[in-house]
């Protein structure tokens, strides 16, 4: 069964501790680890998710690396660049968990401020994702072709501006990063209620906790969130009752052994050399706005 782990970093987690926990998850056949940092957990930690995933790209070889990054704050262009970089360094194992809520630490830390309305937040997150998707798709196949004889390094005619304009964002593009092995990271989001799932249509993997939300989610892959200490039978019962395709285990470095045992009991498996999308059985579509 497709199983991922949401690893919530704790304040006292060390680099060595996190790395050995992720190595254990990789050995247990977990498809992906989704790193939750202080903005997700509300507790300050030593690491931020996207940069820790950059490091893990070099210490792991098979497990998917899903970085939590706000879809409300900062710049979509930077998000697109940093995750394309992780995809390059990890040979196509990158994912993005869209953080669509304003964490306490960041509520008054950025230029943009949330009014707290979920509709407004999710609309902004949907645009943020759309921009990133268009940037990742701004190079046509074959646009990068270093030809030493002619001196042509790339074909600008096959690289396109995105010219995205909305009330919130203006991004010209194209992305400066050449296409990565997966072309783009796999997009993940956690949904707490059915209305949320409908407002964020572009995600590939929806993490849910109830059947109504699962039914409303348009994502091709739906995972049921369960704690790491759940028994295999109970985990399977919850997954089936939710109508989900797989499981998203919630763990900390302390409970990683339980998550590994559960994954092994459920027959989690991954093939060497798989991209994250392949490990999840997904075919990634490109582009943002429909043509």
């Amino acid at each position, binding site marked *: 069964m497709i199983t991922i782990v949401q690893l919530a970093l704790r*304040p*006292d987690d060390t*680099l060595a501790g996190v790395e050995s926990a992720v190595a254990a998850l990789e050995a247990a056949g977990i498809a992906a680890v989704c790193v939750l*940092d*202080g*903005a997700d957990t*509300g*507790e*300050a*930690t*030593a*690491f*931020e998710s*996207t*940069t*820790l995933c*950059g*490091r893990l*790209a*070099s*210490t792991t070889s098979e497990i998917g690396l899903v970085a939590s990054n706000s879809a409300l*704050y*900062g*710049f979509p*262009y*930077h998000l697109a*660049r*940093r995750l*394309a*970089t*992780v995809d*390059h*360094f990890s040979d196509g194992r990158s994912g993005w968990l869209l953080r669509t809520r304003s*964490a306490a*630490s*960041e*509520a*008054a*830390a*950025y*230029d943009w401020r949330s009014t707290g309305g979920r509709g407004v937040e999710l609309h902004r997150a949907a645009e943020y994702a759309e921009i990133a998707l268009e940037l990742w798709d701004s190079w046509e196949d074959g646009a*990068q072709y*270093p030809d*030493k004889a002619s*001196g*042509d*390094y*790339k074909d*600008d005619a096959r*690289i396109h501006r995105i010219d995205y304009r909305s009330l919130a*964002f*203006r*991004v*010209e*593009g*194209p*992305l*400066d*990063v*050449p296409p990565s092995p997966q072309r783009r990271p796999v997009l993940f989001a956690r949904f707490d209620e059915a209305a949320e799932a409908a407002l964020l249509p572009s995600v590939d993997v929806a993490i849910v906790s109830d059947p109504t939300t699962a039914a409303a989610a348009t994502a091709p892959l739906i995972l049921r969130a369960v704690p790491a200490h759940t028994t295999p039978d109970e985990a399977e019962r919850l997954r089936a009752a939710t109508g989900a395709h797989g499981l998203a285990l919630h763990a900390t470095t302390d409970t990683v052994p339980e998550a590994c045992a559960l994954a092994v009991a459920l027959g989690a498996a991954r093939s060497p050399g798989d991209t994250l999308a392949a490990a999840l059985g997904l075919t990634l579509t490109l582009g943002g706005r429909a043509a």
Partner: protein
Amino acid sequence: MTRPKMHLSVNLTEYGRHSGGWRHAVSDVSRIPNLETYRHVVRTAERGLFDQAFIADTPVHGWGRSSSTTTRIDPLEIAAALSTETAHIAIIATLSTSYNEPFDVARRAASVDAVTGGRLGINYVASTGDQTARNFHRAGQLPHDERYQRSNEFIEVVTKLWANAPTADAAGARVAHRGRFFDVDATLDVRQPRHGRPLIVQAGSSPAGRDLAARWADAIYAGGSTIDRAQEYYQDIKARAVAYGRDPDSIKVLLGIAPFLGDTAEEAAELQATMDAHHAEGADVVAHLSGLLEYDLSAHDPDGPLPFDLLPEVTSASVSQATLFTRMAREEHLTIAQVAYRSYVGGLANMQFVSTGTPTHVADVMQEWFEAGTCDGYSLVAPLLPQTIDAFVDGVVPILQERGLFRTEYEGSTITSHFGLSALDSRVAVVA
């Protein structure tokens, strides 16, 4: 007191900083970005006891032919991913103060500091160009002086966030900052970097750039095409630092040098000529210079002088480069075609001095400039990677060590130990 030793940095790029690098026979272009070169260069630079490897950055697509040398992947992610390759050398990541939010940078840089074990430095740049601005919700860039005002305030906010960040022993404190560019009321949710903040590096030769550097920087990447000019810059930076109440030794000036190395002088000269030719072949060099000078030179005789009286004051592109090429043309009596060729083939290497020859020759030149008081060390604007770093570490480093000019072992494994600093002052005093 022992004689001060040189500090060394290398520019980390895929094929070297020379635009013709990728076309060289030794360059592997089978996979782009060329991550294996990044890995090889940091390992080799660490074998050569370098202080740091530096990643430049401009977050925008380079249209046209001459854009194969820029780093196009995220510098903090590169620093994190490369941290497993080495244990001593520091990585300097470039970050734009015009197109970032301080809180995001404070979080991510603190995290990279943690994964590298305190081996992170940040090169803050104001970024130039309207095209870059258009990736970040702006119609165009801010005027030159405002970009530097924003840089100052940006560094101020990130420094305050780190100074008040949580540690293993204490909870973080809230930072309430309300300024012209930023309104931040927050407590950092990532722990404080090992030395209180990452090392601060700056470049920039305009008066505003020098002032920003003297106020904040632990190290500066400097350019200088003659000893006189480099001495003037060195003394000016140290004097400005003193005016800010700083110890002049707390700011290290690293002079850019582009060494073309060969076993013989002929071999080195041939390497340089080959790379220049690779890059310039089929290119409209006059159009390139027109872009830099913001003046269309196509109607002028390429074999005549630059029309100095007609050139506008450059404001939107990089002022430093336009000034440099105009001065070069005037002082060396170059034709438009000659200066255009130079501006095109050298790229950034023109901002530095180029040294072409055997390892002994390059070591001689480095010693001469170092002892003339032009710098505290060098930033290798490596024209061809990995060739330049391999040849430098195997050929030049042993000579510098023999002459007592360079370390024979690392003093420690953090960025402060490389610079002989026991701790970094938080610079909060500067803010207050």
